[in-house]
C-alpha cells in the first residue's frame, strides 16, 4: 500500500490518478468483510478526486499538503453533510450542518473524506463491539476484534481501505486499535488539537489524533489537524510548532536518523509491563533493546499510583459522559420513534431505545458519581488522583526523555470473548488511560507479532513534545527489518 506522502507526490507529478485510487479503495471497501465504515462518502469523494486530477497543476492545488489523499474519519467527528452517528442508534440519520475543525483543515489541504468509520458506541469500549452497526473485524484475523474504540479507522488503514484515518482517544481509543491492527496511532497532548466538532464522551480527557501506516504519515496528518482554533477554549495556543514541521526534515533527508536518538533516555515503568502476556512483554523488551543498540539508554522506574488510574479514569469519564449525553432527547435531531407523549415519557422512551447497554451503564454510573453526597467521595477524589498521576508522569519525564511500555497487555482477542465481562475490558485499558489522565502525548507503534497478531509499543512523551515522540518512533520504524 502506498503512503500519503507517495500519494501526494504521485498525484502532483501525474503518476497517480486520484480518481483511480479512490475507485480502488471503494472497490476494496465494498468487497470487504471487515465492516470498517458506517457511512461512505463515495459520490462526493469520486467527484472531488476528478477535480483534483483536473486541477493538480494549478498553483493553489500544488500547495495543498494532502492533495488527493483519502482519509477515513471516525464517526465521532462531525462532518458537514455526511451522517455522523457516533455508532449509536440515537443519532441515526443525524447530518451535522458543520465540519469539525479538523475536518475543515483536512479539506483545506486537499484531503478526500472516504467515509465515516465504525467505533464503539459514543467511544465507550475497546473492541468496537458496542457499535449499533455491528462489530468491525480485525484484518489480521476475522474472528478477532480490531480494538477500540477507533476500530474502524485502524482496520481501514491496516486493510488499505483508506490511506490515513482520524481517530479520537479518550482512554486509549486510538492506541489500542492501532496496536491490535498493527498501525501507528498518536494521541496528542491534551489541548494540542481542536476538539470542536468531536462528539464529546469525556471532554477533559480526549483528543482527536492521526492513524496511519507509517510514522511520517502520522506526523503529516498531525501537522494538518493541529491548526489553531478559537472555537476550542481548551486548546493551548502555543507558538512552538516543532512537532509538526518534523516530518519535513526527514523528507528532505538531511538528517542522519541514527544520530538523532544517540543519548536519548528511556524510562520503563515496571508496573506498566507487569500484567502483560509473555509474548507482549518479550516484544516490548526487544524494542527497548533495539533502542539501546541505536544509542539510547534506559532505566527501570516505578510509578506507584498507576493502580488508582483505572478507578480515577472511569469515574471522570463516566461523570462527564452522563452530562454530555443528556442532550440526546430526540427533540431536535436524531432518533424520534413512536407517538409523542408528554415530555418525560417521550424523551425517556427515546433514550431507552436509542442507547446501547454499555452507554446506559456508563450514564447511570456517571450520574451516580456526580450525585449530591457522592460528588466529593467519587468525582473530587478522582480529580485528586488524576493530579497525583499527572505529577508522577511529569516526575518520570524529568529524568527520562520518553517512557516505553506495551500499549495493550495482550494481542487482539476473539469477538464476543470479553464483551459480556465489562470489568475485564476496563482492566485492559490501564496503560492507555493513565496517559489521558496525565494529558501527555503518546503513540503506539507496531513492535512485533504473536501468531500473526500485531503487538504495539506505547511511547509516552512530555507535554507538547510530539516531535520527540515521532522522532523516537521514526528511528525505530526505520531500523526494524
Amino acid at each position, binding site marked *: 500500500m502506498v503512503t500519503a506522502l507517495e500519494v501526494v507526490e504521485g498525484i502532483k507529478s501525474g503518476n497517480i490518478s486520484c480518481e483511480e485510487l479512490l475507485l480502488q479503495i471503494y472497490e476494496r471497501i465494498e468487497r470487504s468483510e471487515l465492516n470498517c465504515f458506517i457511512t461512505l462518502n463515495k459520490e462526493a469523494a469520486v467527484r472531488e478526486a476528478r477535480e483534483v486530477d483536473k486541477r493538480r497543476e494549478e498553483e493553489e492545488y500544488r500547495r495543498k499538503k494532502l492533495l488527493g489523499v483519502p482519509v477515513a474519519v471516525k464517526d465521532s*467527528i*462531525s462532518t458537514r453533510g455526511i451522517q*455522523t452517528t*457516533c455508532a449509536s442508534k440515537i*443519532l441515526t440519520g*443525524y447530518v*451535522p*450542518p*458543520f465540519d*469539525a475543525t479538523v475536518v475543515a483543515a483536512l479539506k483545506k489541504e486537499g484531503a478526500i473524506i472516504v467515509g465515516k468509520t465504525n467505533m464503539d458506541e459514543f467511544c465507550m469500549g475497546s473492541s468496537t463491539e458496542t457499535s449499533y452497526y455491528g462489530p468491525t473485524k480485525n484484518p489480521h484475523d476475522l474472528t478477532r476484534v480490531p480494538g477500540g474504540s477507533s476500530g474502524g479507522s485502524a482496520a481501514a488503514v491496516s486493510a488499505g481501505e483508506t490511506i490515513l484515518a482520524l481517530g479520537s482517544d479518550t482512554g486509549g481509543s486510538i492506541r489500542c486499535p492501532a496496536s491490535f491492527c498493527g498501525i501507528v496511532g498518536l494521541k496528542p497532548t491534551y489541548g494540542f488539537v481542536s*476538539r*470542536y*466538532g*468531536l*462528539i*464529546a464522551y*469525556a*471532554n*477533559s480527557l480526549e483528543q482527536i489524533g492521526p492513524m496511519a501506516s507509517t510514522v511520517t504519515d502520522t506526523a503529516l496528518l498531525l501537522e494538518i489537524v493541529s491548526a489553531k482554533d*478559537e*472555537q*476550542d*477554549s*481548551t486548546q493551548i495556543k502555543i507558538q512552538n510548532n516543532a512537532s509538526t514541521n518534523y516530518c519535513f526534515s526527514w523528507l528532505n533527508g538531511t538528517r542522519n536518523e541514527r544520530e538523532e536518538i544517540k543519548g536519548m533516555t528511556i524510562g520503563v515503568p515496571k508496573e506498566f509491563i507487569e500484567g502483560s502476556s509473555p509474548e507482549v512483554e518479550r516484544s516490548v523488551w526487544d524494542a527497548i533493546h533495539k533502542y539501546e543498540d541505536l544509542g539510547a539508554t534506559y532505566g527501570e522506574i516505578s510509578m506507584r499510583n498507576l493502580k488508582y488510574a483505572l478507578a480515577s479514569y472511569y469515574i471522570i469519564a463516566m*461523570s*462527564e459522559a*452522563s*452530562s454530555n*449525553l*443528556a*442532550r*440526546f*432527547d430526540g*427533540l*431536535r*435531531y436524531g432518533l424520534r420513534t413512536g407517538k*409523542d407523549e408528554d*415530555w*418525560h415519557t417521550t*424523551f425517556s422512551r427515546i433514550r431507552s431505545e436509542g442507547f446501547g447497554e454499555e452507554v446506559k451503564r456508563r450514564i447511570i454510573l456517571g*450520574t451516580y458519581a*456526580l*450525585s*449530591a453526597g457522592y*460528588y466529593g467521595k467519587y*468525582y473530587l477524589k478522582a480529580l485528586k488522583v488524576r493530579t497525583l498521576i499527572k505529577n508522577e508522569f511529569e516526575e518520570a519525564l524529568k529524568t527520562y526523555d520518553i517512557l516505553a511500555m506495551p500499549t495493550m497487555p495482550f494481542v487482539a482477542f476473539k469477538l464476543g470473548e470479553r464483551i459480556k465481562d465489562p470489568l475485564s475490558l476496563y482492566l485492559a485499558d490501564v496503560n492507555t488511560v493513565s496517559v489521558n489522565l496525565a494529558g501527555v502525548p503518546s503513540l503506539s507503534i507496531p513492535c512485533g507479532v504473536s501468531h500473526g497478531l500485531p503487538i504495539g509499543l506505547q511511547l509516552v512523551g512530555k507535554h507538547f513534545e510530539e516531535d520527540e515522540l515521532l522522532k523516537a518512533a521514526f528511528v525505530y520504524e526505520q531500523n526494524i527489518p
Partner: protein
Amino acid sequence: MDVKIGLECHAQLLTQSKLFCSCSTDYHNAEPNTHVCATCLGLPGALPVVNERAIRYGIKVALALGCTIQPKVIFYRKNYYYPDLPRGFQITQYEFPIAFNGLVRIESDGGKEREIRIKRVHMEEDPGRLVYRGTIDTATYSLVDYNRSGIPLVEIVTEPDLKSPKEARIFLGKLRSILEYLGVFEGDLEGAMRVDANISLKGGERAEVKNISSYKGVEKALSFEITRQKNLLRRGLTVQQETRHYDETRGVTLSLRTKEFEHDYRYFPEPDLVPIRISNRIEEIRREIPELPDEKKLRFIAQYSLTMEHANALTFDRHIADFYEVVASKIDPKLSATWIADVLKGELNYRSISMREASKRISPDDFVAMLRYLKKGVITERGATEIIREMLDSGGKPEEILRSKGLASIGSDEIEKAIHAVIKENEAAVKDYKAGKKEALNFLVGQVMKHTRGTADPKEVRAMLTRKIDGEI
C-alpha cells in the same frame, strides 16, 4: 407578622452576541429559531467560547452592587432535563462566581432607608423559551424557540433581608435603576428581568416561587404567598418546603414540587471551558462605572437645590436624569425639575412608555423651548401640558403645536371680553356669588377658561373676575 424574603434576580445583559457563541442577542422581534447556531442549539461537538464583554458586564454589575470580586471565575454545568435546555445542562456558576457580599440601599415604606445584602453575583446562560398554543393548561403541545438560548444573564442573589412584598418591588426597582445606569441592561424589554423569590413566615418552612417575570408580579406573587402561608399556619397546618410556580395571568402560585422531589443538579466544572482570571481587570472596569442613582440624587439636591422627592423622581431612570440635566443646563433647574418630575413623568406613566422611548419624540431642546414660552407668558401652564401631551402623542415641535392648537395665551382685553360674555350668560351664578356662595366663582372661572380654550391664565382670570363683580356691588 415576621416575613423573610430573598430574591434571585436574573437580568439579561445587553451584549451584542450571546454568552457562548456569536449569535445576535437581538431576538425580541425575530422569527422563532432564527438566531441560533450549533453551539446555542447544543448540537453534538459544538463548543462554547466565553463572551469577554459579558464577563466585563458581570464584573461591572458586581462592583456597582459593592461586591467583593473573586480572582477567578469558573463555569459549571447544572444538569437537568427540560425541552428548552438544548444540552440537557445549563452553563452557569457554582463555587466560583464573579462576586460575593454586596449591599443595595433602598428607601422602604415611609422613606426609611434599608440595607439589603447581596449574597452573590454570577453569570449564566438563558435557556430557550416554551411557546404554548393557547394557555399552559389547555395547550395540547408546546413549541420551543431557541432564540433566547445562550443570552447572557447575570444572577443577583439577595440575603433574606426583604420584609414585605412592597419592599421586594422597591428593591427590584432600585436594582433595575442601577443596572440601567451601568448601560448593561434595558428593563423594559420583555423578559429582561426574571425573579425567583424565597419566602418564609415565622414558624414556617421556606417556599420558593419561580418564574416571576414582571416587576409588579413580584409584589403580587409574594402577597399571594403570604396569604396562603398565613392561612395554613392559622389552621394549624405546616408550610412545606417546596417549589411553586407563579401563574401570572391568574395571580396565584401553584405547587411545582416538594422537597423530596427537588432536582439534584449534579453541578460539576464545565470541562469545555477554562477558568478565567479576572483580578487584573477589576480596576480598569471600576473606572468605567458611571455615577450611580444614589450619588446622582445627592448631587442633584446640592447642585440644583431640589427637594428629595424631585431628586428621587429624576434620578430613578437614567434616561430621565440625563434628560433633566440637559434641560436644567439651559433653563431654570427648579422649573425644569417640576415640569419633568411632576408633569412629564405623569404623562409617561399614563401612556406606559419609558423615557427611552419618549426621547425619540421629545428632545431636551424641545422641552426647553416649551418652558421658555411658559416663562415668558406666551403659554399658560395648561398650554404647556397640552404641548407635552401633543409632543408625546404625535411628535410635533412646540412652536408648531402652539400655532396649530392656538395655545398662545391671550391679553387682558380678550379676557375682558370673555368675562363680559360669561357674566351675561350666567346671571344665576353671579347672583349666587354675590349672595356669598364662594364656589360659584370657581364655576365662573371655569367658564371663562372654556371661552378662551385654556389660553388665559386662570389666576389672572380669577383676579379680573372678582374685581369686575365686586366692583359692581
